[in-house]
């Protein structure tokens, strides 16, 4: 498709109007996952394994089923027949196994049965009536231990073609890529540093727990309301797991209280549907926070070895990384993505990266903003920082010297199109933050970060009303301000005010398929589709104007919301505003709408550079982030306030990941900190003002130059903060989170 639109000179794009969902959210009118009920509704509750790894010998639900308040009990047996549905293999099978345990409970918190009862309290109480006999098995939760020869096997035969012979069955995928000759490159270096790093699993930490209301009749027709980043994938997955036709299940996405990748799959939704089918009543199921931590996707934990060689002038001669990612008791840890992203910011002659996907007795990992990339950046950028320190080189200058640019052969293979990494580094060097003096006890760190971004299947529909206003229907749940950016892009094409456009997240029955809101794809792909749908409507508006004037349609152009005669033979007519055309559209050819459906394939990669100042208290080990600046290429910021919000959110979550957040498992394999009191995410008082700089290097693959901005912002923080803390503490920090006990231990080890 031709994407030759202008990349500057916008009227609406780039402005900062009020958010369309603001009033609903501050007044409590917005309906989130749990804010819905239905006549005759039952309440669900899920029984979860207390063991990290156990064979389920027997489940006796007879006492629960006999209870007067209990209307249905489901176990894996209620899903079993659908195993034979064609296509229920691969990831669908993994999701089913995660949603309801089969022969074995694979992690602490794994669902083994569920109940629907007349009240939430009755449902929770009745769980105690279900008797489960377990045969407890040896477990493993650590990634390195899970790869060791004596590790318990979680599932035989889960490894795919890529895993080299001789590896433990818990290693299920292997990635190996790069170019050049790293050994020759290391030989050219004046200094080679080899080091190892560890990060713990963290949770996406969305404030809204998973919640849904499900209705499924014995006729196979169903309705599902849920908080999700993608209701079409919820529809497809639930239909497959329950053995019903996809189109017979209508799924509506609620307002969403955060997702960050963690709501790109299903957990309780198929269970609620199964309960509803059995009870023949609507069933509402809402997770507790503890259930969210124990049984929904955290990110992977990682163990990494990095080796980088550098010349005295700062030139990187070779880089090598081994990235081992643990993704819970299922295949899917993004070791390949970690490997492909880790060295992507740099123009390297010799590079080699290896990634492992390793299973352990933990919950199935889910995506979390640029899944896999932040850990790799932490390890790589820490070693680059150490090289800069030892060679007495400026860390921004070194990154500029080695920075990838248009035409650079990326570490993962192809050559880059136009990219904006150099621009972010130049902006970092020029930013007052970078030259501001540090107080005693403070340290400064910088890091670059990279993410691919994604396009994905997309459908958009735009309908004009008689009064000249427009309603826009998109299928990507609004997790970052997309309703505002869609309205701005439609306004730009139609030439009508932002306020005259209402954007709705359509349900699965009213729009064609849409991929999940993930991969930083929404402003890019739904935005592109919105522009195309609006142009489609403009074509029809121009046809109506041409007919009214009695001139050919190619003698009409669209300017500032009006049809305007154009060209020598067009005649002399006053501009015809959009509302004048829609006023009588019913009698001039019928309703005017615009549509677009496609899988856009030009997402364009993006880069960011972060600058962080941190202060370490040597007595307590507590770290304070005293100043933070995010610089990132947005391609084109459609609504700059939301873009800044994405940058700040990435930094805030990165601060949590770097300093405090971690999954802590006991020797018994049970999660020790499954509430927000014990799993500490940053609160406002933990954060400094996070400054932002939006760099705009237009993406050639989008009509207005948009690049995704949702994920790249969480890639540099772990490394930038670790570098700042390492300088402040005077000791290299190799393990995240850098919690006070770890800082104190590092200080002690350092004497």
């Amino acid at each position, binding site marked *: 498709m031709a994407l030759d639109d202008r990349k500057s000179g916008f009227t609406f794009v780039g402005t900062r109007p009020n958010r369309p969902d603001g009033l609903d959210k501050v007044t409590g009118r917005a309906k989130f996952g749990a804010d819905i009920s239905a006549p005759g509704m039952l309440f669900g509750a899920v029984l979860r394994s207390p063991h990290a790894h156990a064979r389920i010998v027997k489940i006796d639900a007879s006492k629960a089923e006999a209870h007067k308040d209990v209307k249905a009990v489901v176990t894996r047996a209620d899903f079993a027949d659908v195993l034979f549905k064609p296509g229920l293999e691969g990831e669908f099978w993994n999701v089913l196994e995660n949603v309801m345990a089969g022969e074995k409970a694979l992690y602490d918190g794994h669902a083994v049965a569920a109940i629907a009862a007349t009240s939430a309290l009755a449902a929770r109480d009745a769980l105690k009536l279900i008797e489960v006999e377990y045969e407890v098995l040896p477990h493993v939760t650590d990634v390195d231990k899970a790869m060791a020869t004596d590790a318990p096997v979680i599932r035989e035969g889960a490894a795919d073609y890529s895993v080299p012979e001789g590896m433990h069955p818990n290693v299920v995928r292997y990635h*190996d890529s790069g170019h050049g000759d790293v050994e020759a490159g290391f030989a050219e270096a004046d200094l080679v540093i080899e080091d190892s790093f560890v990060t713990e699993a963290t949770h996406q930490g969305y404030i809204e727990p998973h919640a849904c209301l499900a209705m499924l009749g014995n006729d196979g027709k169903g309705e599902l309301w849920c908080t999700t980043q993608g209701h079409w994938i919820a529809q497809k997955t639930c239909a497959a797991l329950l053995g019903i036709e996809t189109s017979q299940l209508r799924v509506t996405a609620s307002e969403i209280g955060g997702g960050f990748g963690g709501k790109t799959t299903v957990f309780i939704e198929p269970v609620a549907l199964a309960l509803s089918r059995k009870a023949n009543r609507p069933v509402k199921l809402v997770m507790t926070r503890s259930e969210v931590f124990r049984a929904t996707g955290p990110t992977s934990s990682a163990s990494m070895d990095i080796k980088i060689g550098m010349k005295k002038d700062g030139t990187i001669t070779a880089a090598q990384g081994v990235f081992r990612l643990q993704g819970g008791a299922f295949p899917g840890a993004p070791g*390949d993505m970690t490997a492909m992203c880790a060295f992507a910011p740099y123009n390297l002659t010799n590079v080699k990266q290896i990634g492992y996907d390793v299973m352990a007795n933990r919950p199935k990992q889910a*995506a979390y903003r640029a899944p896999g990339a932040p850990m790799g950046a932490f390890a790589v950028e820490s070693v680059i920082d150490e090289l800069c320190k030892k060679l007495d080189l400026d860390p921004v200058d070194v990154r500029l010297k080695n920075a990838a640019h248009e035409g650079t052969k990326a570490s993962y293979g192809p050559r880059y*199109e136009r990219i904006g990494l150099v621009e972010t580094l130049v902006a970092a060097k020029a930013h007052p933050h970078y030259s501001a003096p540090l107080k005693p006890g403070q340290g400064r760190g910088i890091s670059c970060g990279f993410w691919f971004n994604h396009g994905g299947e997309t459908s958009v529909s735009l309908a004009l009303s008689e009064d000249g206003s427009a309603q826009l229907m998109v299928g990507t749940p609004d997790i970052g301000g997309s309703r505002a950016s869609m309205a701005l892009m439609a306004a730009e094409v139609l030439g009508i005010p932002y306020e005259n456009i209402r954007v709705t997240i359509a349900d699965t029955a009213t729009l064609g398929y849409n991929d999940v809101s993930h991969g930083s794809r929404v402003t890019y792909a739904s935005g592109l589709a919105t522009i195309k749908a609006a142009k489609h409507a403009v074509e029809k508006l121009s046809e109506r104007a041409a007919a009214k004037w009695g001139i050919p349609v190619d003698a009409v152009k669209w300017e500032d919301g009006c049809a305007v005669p154009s060209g020598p033979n067009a005649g002399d007519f006053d501009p015809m505003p959009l509302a004048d055309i829609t006023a009588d559209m019913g009698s001039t050819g019928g309703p005017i709408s615009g549509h677009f459906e496609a899988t856009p394939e030009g997402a364009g*990669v993006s880069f960011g550079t972060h600058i962080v100042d941190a202060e370490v208290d040597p007595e307590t080990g507590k770290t304070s982030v005293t100043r933070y600046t995010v610089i990132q290429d947005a391609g084109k910021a459609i609504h700059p306030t939301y873009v800044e919000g994405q940058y700040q959110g990435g930094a805030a979550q990165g601060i949590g990941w770097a300093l405090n957040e971690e999954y802590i498992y006991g020797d018994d394999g049970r999660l020790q900190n499954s509430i927000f009191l014990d799993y500490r995410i940053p609160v406002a008082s933990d954060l400094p003002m996070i400054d932002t700089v939006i760099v705009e290097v237009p993406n050639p693959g989008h009509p207005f130059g948009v690049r995704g901005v949702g994920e790249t912002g969480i890639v540099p923080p772990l490394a930038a903060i670790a570098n700042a803390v390492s300088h402040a503490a005077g000791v290299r920090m190799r393990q995240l989170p850098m919690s006070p006990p770890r800082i104190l231990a590092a200080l002690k080890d350092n004497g």
Partner: protein
Amino acid sequence: MVEVHLWSGLRSLTGGQQVIEVQAKTTGDLLKELVRAHPQLQGPIDAGVSIAIDGRVIATGLTEPIPEGSEVYLMQRLRGG
């Protein structure tokens, strides 16, 4: 002819070859031809691949044209959050 660069982990399936020449005008043809030349590539292709054409990453599309002489890389399917 198009030269397709594989990631090095695939060499074990292609007898050590990392660059494979195929005749293909679209991304879909390219994948078919790769499997025809090296049937063992079916596994990774079924698991999900993306294709970079002169640096532009085609995540899933099978109908994207491949201009003569373009630089083509097979990549593991991208995922996001």
